[in-house]
């Protein structure tokens, strides 16, 4: 393979280092207006009256739009259809959109938005996820405030626990995690004279955006055209939220017949957009003396906020990943996502799994401790291998490289196994897995399209429906196209994702772009190869079956014989007026899920990983310093190792933020207390430890060149590795994230009063 597997330079990086203006806020259109959003200041209220007169009298203010101006349906359709675009009778969270204000300048629009006065009759909010479930009086969603309940029933946990030699039972909690992409949410709508509307912005899912705008404006899909602008980080935060922004610009643009731009202010972005679901977990696990994981019982509750958005799908992933990457014959999982009067939570790298894996992997270390086994040894005795069956009853056949990831990390780290020194330094392990793609919960979306055109001069353009978010999709897909067609990488150009160029290809989520768009491109390129090979066959007088494309030339499969450079074959096809363009399509292999038992082939395949954290804990202050991290990931095939390492390194640092510092919370009125970078602390360069990334390649036969998706996985096992390392370092077990110095200090103080017997 000439290009796949090589560390080629990211294709858009030269533009980025020069600061070429391709992000949404860099774009300007003649006559463009600026929008600002009027939002609810309270967590729950009935709307009595919206007064817009004063805002409209401000110089430069152009218009105010409320739900009454919506020509279509007042709903942002995602999975369920419970979220209004603009609030009508009730507001259900602080920051909920009520009206959109337009002005010639951004600052004027923002100032005028503050002058829209909304008379509200406040109602008592529900802010606690456990109180929300089956609340006796307040019904925010259905009868019980449960958006979705999922279950797994496998074996007989009650009987299995009675035969266990050790049982560990604990509760765990995790808070919001904010995406903190550095580019705030941004969107532009441009109405065209022909009755179409163009939407350009920062987004993961152009087809979601199209669906929302067609719903709100009451237009057919053929008249809404969505193009992704350069997107400055997303991590799940630009999955469903851009649909809301697109409606906020599309409505005024449609009504006023002028382009409209909207960029969220950072605080507004942090207050009003989705985050990782806060969670509560009760986890019971049991093992026999010889270190076999016998039974797992989990109750998992996550806070979905005021509207369901992507929560049912988030819950699905969390449920499937509930027991970690282990064999276990007796499993009972009950998971719930509940409605509260807080900001709707949604997709964030890992998608419901980091919370449950924090619990699962903390449990594994406690079992190991009670059994007197090394944490790596207990995992080795239980981890999934080819031929094993997952807790959903899925038989694993190929591409199960988990044990190799464990071996590689142990080998690279030289984790000392001898007598533990009392120097405040500790090591912590986690082994995790990631179901690639949407899985059975999203199987109706598991298809993608692509289009490839080979031009007469030999250059190639391609279009896909998935998006570049910084993860490196453009480069990886360009490498695949270059490989398939034998044309040099520098001749291959991706066109910005655009709903008019390919059929609905689903969302850019679930680490699915490389596999899905990669396979669709292979399909399209295959059709073009057929034309090229037929033409070469004619010219060379060699049967097609005896020809290959190798590094820019069509050559005989056998050693000797004439060959033909690819650009010559292209010229020849052009002269013969043969079509060198093709559509590609890919549909995932089937997945299944039984709602009653939680059994089925939950995902098409899995990525696997082992993480090891080395930390030092200051016993006086409780402060944790992460000294070094090792991570090995089975990615099937690294199409571009540099980009794969970039995913590992970036995911680890986000995971360290989740583990140690990121602590967004609301006050007793449901107001987020720390919506800015000076109070919500994400890791900086100064907090970045040395990271050793190791790539393991157990090819996935249905992936392009063996590749699996894995971009989310690097974050998922970091928090439990750190929690386990803290325990190893100073003997305290922290079960609530983030692991702050206060929590460690308090735990150290109380552990001094009650002597610790373990280790």
């Amino acid at each position, binding site marked *: 393979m000439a290009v796949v597997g090589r560390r080629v330079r990211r294709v858009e990086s030269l533009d980025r*280092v020069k600061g*070429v203006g391709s992000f949404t806020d860099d774009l300007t259109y003649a006559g463009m207006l600026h929008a600002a959003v009027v939002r609810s200041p309270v967590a729950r209220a009935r709307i009595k009256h919206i007064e817009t007169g004063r805002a409209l009298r401000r110089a430069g203010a152009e218009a105010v739009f409320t739900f009454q101006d919506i020509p279509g349906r007042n709903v942002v359709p995602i999975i369920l259809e419970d979220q209004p675009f603009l609030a009508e009778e009730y507001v259900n969270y602080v920051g909920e959109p009520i009206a959109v204000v337009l002005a010639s300048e951004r600052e004027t629009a923002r100032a005028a938005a503050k002058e829209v006065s909304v008379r509200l009759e406040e109602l008592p909010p529900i802010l606690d996820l456990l109180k929300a479930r089956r609340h006796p009086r307040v019904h925010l969603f259905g009868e019980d405030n449960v958006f979705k309940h999922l279950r797994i029933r496998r074996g007989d946990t009650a009987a299995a626990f009675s035969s266990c030699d050790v049982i560990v039972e604990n509760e765990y909690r995790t808070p919001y995690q904010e995406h903190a992409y550095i580019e705030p949410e941004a969107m532009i709508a441009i109405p065209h004279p022909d009755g179409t509307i163009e939407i350009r912005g920062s987004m993961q899912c152009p087809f979601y955006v199209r669906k929302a705008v067609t719903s709100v404006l009451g237009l057919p899909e053929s008249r809404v055209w969505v193009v992704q602008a350069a997107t400055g980080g997303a991590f799940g935060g630009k999955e469903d939220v851009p649909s809301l922004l697109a409606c906020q610009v599309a409505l005024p643009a449609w009504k006023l017949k002028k382009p409209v731009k909207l960029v969220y202010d950072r605080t507004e972005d942090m207050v009003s957009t989705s985050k990782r679901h806060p969670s509560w977990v009760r986890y019971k696990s049991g093992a026999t003396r010889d270190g076999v994981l016998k039974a797992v019982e989990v109750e998992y509750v996550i806070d979905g906020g005021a509207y369901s958005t992507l929560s049912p799908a988030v819950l699905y992933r969390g449920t499937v990943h509930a027991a970690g990457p282990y064999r276990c014959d007796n499993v009972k999982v009950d998971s719930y996502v509940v409605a509260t009067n807080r900001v709707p939570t949604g997709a964030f790298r890992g998608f419901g799994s980091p919370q449950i894996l924090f619990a699962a992997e903390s449990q594994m270390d406690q079992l190991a401790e009670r059994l007197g086994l090394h944490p790596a040894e207990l995992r080795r005795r239980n981890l999934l291998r080819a031929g094993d069956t997952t807790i959903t009853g899925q038989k694993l056949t190929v591409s199960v490289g988990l044990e190799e990831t464990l071996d590689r990390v142990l080998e690279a780290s030289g984790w000392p196994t001898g007598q533990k020194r009392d120097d405040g330094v500790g090591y912590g392990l986690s082994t995790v897995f990631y179901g690639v793609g949407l899985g059975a919960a999203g199987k109706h979306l598991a298809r993608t399209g692509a289009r490839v055109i080979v031009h007469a001069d030999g250059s190639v353009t391609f279009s896909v429906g998935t998006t570049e978010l910084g993860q490196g999709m453009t480069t990886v897909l360009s490498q695949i196209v270059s490989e398939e067609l034998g044309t040099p990488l520098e001749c291959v150009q991706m066109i910005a994702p655009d709903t008019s160029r390919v059929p609905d290809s689903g969302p850019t989520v679930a680490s699915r772009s490389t596999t899905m768009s990669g396979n669709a491109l292979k399909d399209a390129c295959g059709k073009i190869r057929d034309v090229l090979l037929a033409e070469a066959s004619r010219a060379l007088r060699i049967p097609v079956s005896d020809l290959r494309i190798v590094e820019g030339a069509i050559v005989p499969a056998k050693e000797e014989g004439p060959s033909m450079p690819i650009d010559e074959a292209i010229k020849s096809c052009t002269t013969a007026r043969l079509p060198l363009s093709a559509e590609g399509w890919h549909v995932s292999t089937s997945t299944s899920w039984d709602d009653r038992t939680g059994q089925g082939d939950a995902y098409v395949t899995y990525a696997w990983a082992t993480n090891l954290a080395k930390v030092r804990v200051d016993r006086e202050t409780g402060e944790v310093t992460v000294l070094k991290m090792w991570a090995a990931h089975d990615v099937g095939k690294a199409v571009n190792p540099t980009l794969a*390492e970039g995913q590992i390194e970036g995911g680890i640092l986000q995971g360290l933020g989740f583990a140690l510092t990121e602590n967004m919370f609301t006050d007793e009125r449901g107001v987020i207390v720390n919506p800015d970078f000076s109070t919500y602390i994400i890791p900086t360069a*100064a907090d970045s430890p040395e990271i050793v990334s190791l790539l393991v390649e157990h090819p996935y036969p249905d992936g392009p060149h063996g590749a699996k998706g894995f971009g989310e996985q690097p974050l998922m096992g970091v928090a439990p590795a750190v929690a386990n390392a803290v325990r190893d370092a100073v003997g305290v077990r922290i079960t609530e994230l983030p692991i702050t110095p206060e929590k460690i200090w308090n735990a150290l103080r109380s552990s001094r009063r009650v002597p610790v017997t373990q280790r």
Partner: protein
Amino acid sequence: MKLKFTVNRRATTLEVTGAERVIDLLRERLGLVGTKEGCGKGECGACTVLLDGSPVCSCLLLSSQVAGREITTIEGLSEGESLHPVQAAFAETGAVQCGFCTPGLVLSSAALLADIPAPSREQMKRALAGNLCRCTGYQKIFEAVELASRNMRREKRRRR
């Protein structure tokens, strides 16, 4: 008031009130959109420019504060088509992911290397701690600074 200052080596005069933010002058009046706004509060560093060679947040700077001074934005770092060694190194090592923080990080790195030609990792961490990046984990950014440092010192020796 008339504001006279230098932007990317060019003498520039603008009619201003004195209270505009410099980031808005650059992006909206001069069309230099390489300077990005991530927070508007001086907390993320995406809007970093060099003011007389030192990195500052242009969202916290008012137009009256830059009278007579010299500003370098990302557009002014490269000379024509040829990239500054820091820019080339960022592209080379994989230090760019989404690229929104990149102009600020490149400028802060260039200022660091102008000050300390061969910085240690600790010096890099201190110098870059004001520029948030949510994608890369900073590893490949450190590698880029090291690569640029090597290339710049080699170039300097060659010129001697």
